[in-house]
């Protein structure tokens, strides 16, 4: 039976019969669902005369989901993103299915995304309330914490738009003490490349689950590209066909390696197979196109003057 189960009219118009109305599944042919992977695995790898003679489908489902999680982190392409306008509080709440970020950028007037870089030079620690003598204070046997740390207060102290408004110039250290690029500007011993950019900075406040921006990002349109673990919702539980073989081998290896009385050479064989398939999937999914590469390599003939 062929894999396409919709006719062209159904595919392009969707159930409502209206072109591009949002209920279509454009591009879904490149993905395979986790349910299909589990069923195919049970058929192809489990049973009499096979290495795995018996296994619970629950176990297969568990390892399939773990595979999707692991693959989401470093094999499957990230396709999650969220765009917001940065509020006056200079923070962005982490998305519900956020695991880690891949890129944070603000969008300029031309729609170009300018990368915002992470900084390690600030944070939002828990601030303890102290009395006049500097001793910690307690309530109900617990430390009394301040609502907001002084570090964050000072980081956010660039509370008004700098001269020229968002996107404008005339930044200064009085109005915007958090702008690291200003500290780097004209440094006596040479500029610090880490701070030599004017797109702003951010750090992730893990305790509060938010991203905090420097004051030059206020009011800007910010896009967060991030990775999830692929298990947030049923719709997410799909794998690109390029990675299907790798997922299946990963499941087989996981089951065999956690099972008793399986000879170590078999485990090692499946480990190698899983590893090789994973590498192949990574290469396939890395979007290495010959024409794009040749365009990039044309750079090699450029003269660099010192």
């Amino acid at each position, binding site marked *: 039976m062929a894999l396409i189960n919709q006719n062209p009219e*159904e595919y392009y118009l969707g*159930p409502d*019969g*209206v072109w591009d109305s949002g209920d279509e599944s454009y591009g879904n042919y490149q993905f395979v669902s986790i349910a299909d992977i589990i069923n195919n695995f049970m058929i192809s790898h489990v049973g009499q005369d096979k290495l795995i003679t018996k296994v619970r489908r*629950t176990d297969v489902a*568990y390892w399939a989901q*773990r595979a999707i999680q692991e693959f989401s982190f470093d094999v499957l392409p990230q396709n999650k993103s969220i765009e917001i306008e940065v509020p006056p509080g200079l923070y962005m709440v982490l998305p519900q299915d956020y695991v880690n970020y891949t890129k944070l950028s603000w969008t300029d007037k031309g729609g170009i995304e300018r990368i915002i870089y992470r900084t390690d030079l600030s944070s939002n620690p828990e601030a303890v309330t102290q009395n006049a003598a500097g001793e910690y204070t307690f309530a109900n046997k617990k430390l009394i914490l301040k609502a907001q740390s002084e570090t964050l207060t000072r980081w956010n102290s660039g509370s008004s738009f700098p001269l020229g408004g968002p996107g404008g110039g005339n930044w200064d250290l009085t109005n915007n003490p958090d702008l690291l690029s200003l500290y780097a500007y004209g440094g006596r011993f040479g500029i610090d490349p880490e701070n030599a950019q004017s797109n702003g900075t951010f750090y992730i406040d893990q305790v509060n689950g938010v991203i905090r921006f420097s004051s030059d990002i206020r009011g800007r349109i910010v896009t967060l590209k991030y990775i999830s673990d692929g298990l947030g919702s049923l719709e997410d539980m799909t794998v690109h066909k390029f990675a299907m073989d790798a997922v299946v081998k990963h499941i087989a290896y996981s089951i065999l390696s956690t099972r008793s009385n399986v000879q170590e050479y078999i485990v090692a064989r499946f480990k190698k197979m899983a590893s090789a398939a994973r590498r192949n999937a990574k290469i396939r999914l890395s979007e290495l196109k010959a024409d794009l590469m040749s365009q990039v390599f044309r750079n090699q003939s450029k003269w660099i003057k010192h």
Partner: protein
Amino acid sequence: MAVSVDTVYQRVLAILNKEQRGYVTPQEFNLFANQAQLDIFEQYFYDINQFGRMPGNDTEFSDMLNILNEKINIFETNAAMTYGGVYWSTPANLYRLGTIVFDNITTSKSLYPVPNTVVTTTTQVEVERINYNEFLYINQSLLTKPTNSRPVFVASTLGYKVYGDAPLVIGVSCNYIKEPSQAAWAYQMVFGEALYNANESTDFELHPSEETELVIKILAFAGLVVKDIGMYQVASQISAQTNQQEKS
């Protein structure tokens, strides 16, 4: 596809009566017949387990697993299970439970016959057996928690609890091996003699290839009854030889 109870009885009598060894009454025969039938029937499951561990062969009629499956398939059937409020119960004639199946009903929208037509799809999914202690863990993990597309069941003496997104209360059936019917050689007395009554009799349900084995096993039992240890020994020996030949 059955073994005639009359044929088996006549053969048993013929062999037993040779040299005036004795006689097996119809009542005794019926008891032995069912004992032999169950003995042969139960052995199928262990044989399948045994041959499942051996490499099979590609011959059309002589692969042991195929032969055994063919013998068991006669008893394989499926039926809806009945829900009694909390537990599901199996059909009355169940001998061995195979697969519990859940009819997972999902809805989607279709372009046909008119746009946005709601279409109901029923997919049959296997309900997986787990132990109760495993269920406690499986149910607590979001990765393994049962769903309607991946249901599980827990069996106890009270019946079967089937879990999907929630405990399932409809659409559960099972594939199972039914109990063989009780073979019975019925008769009517005509001029003081027991004459075979085909209408009242029940044949053996076993595969026709089991006819010889049935005769031998019944003879062995009969040998004990008529206190002919020789008969018992010969029958047992033949049975053992057959087994050895089939399984080596």
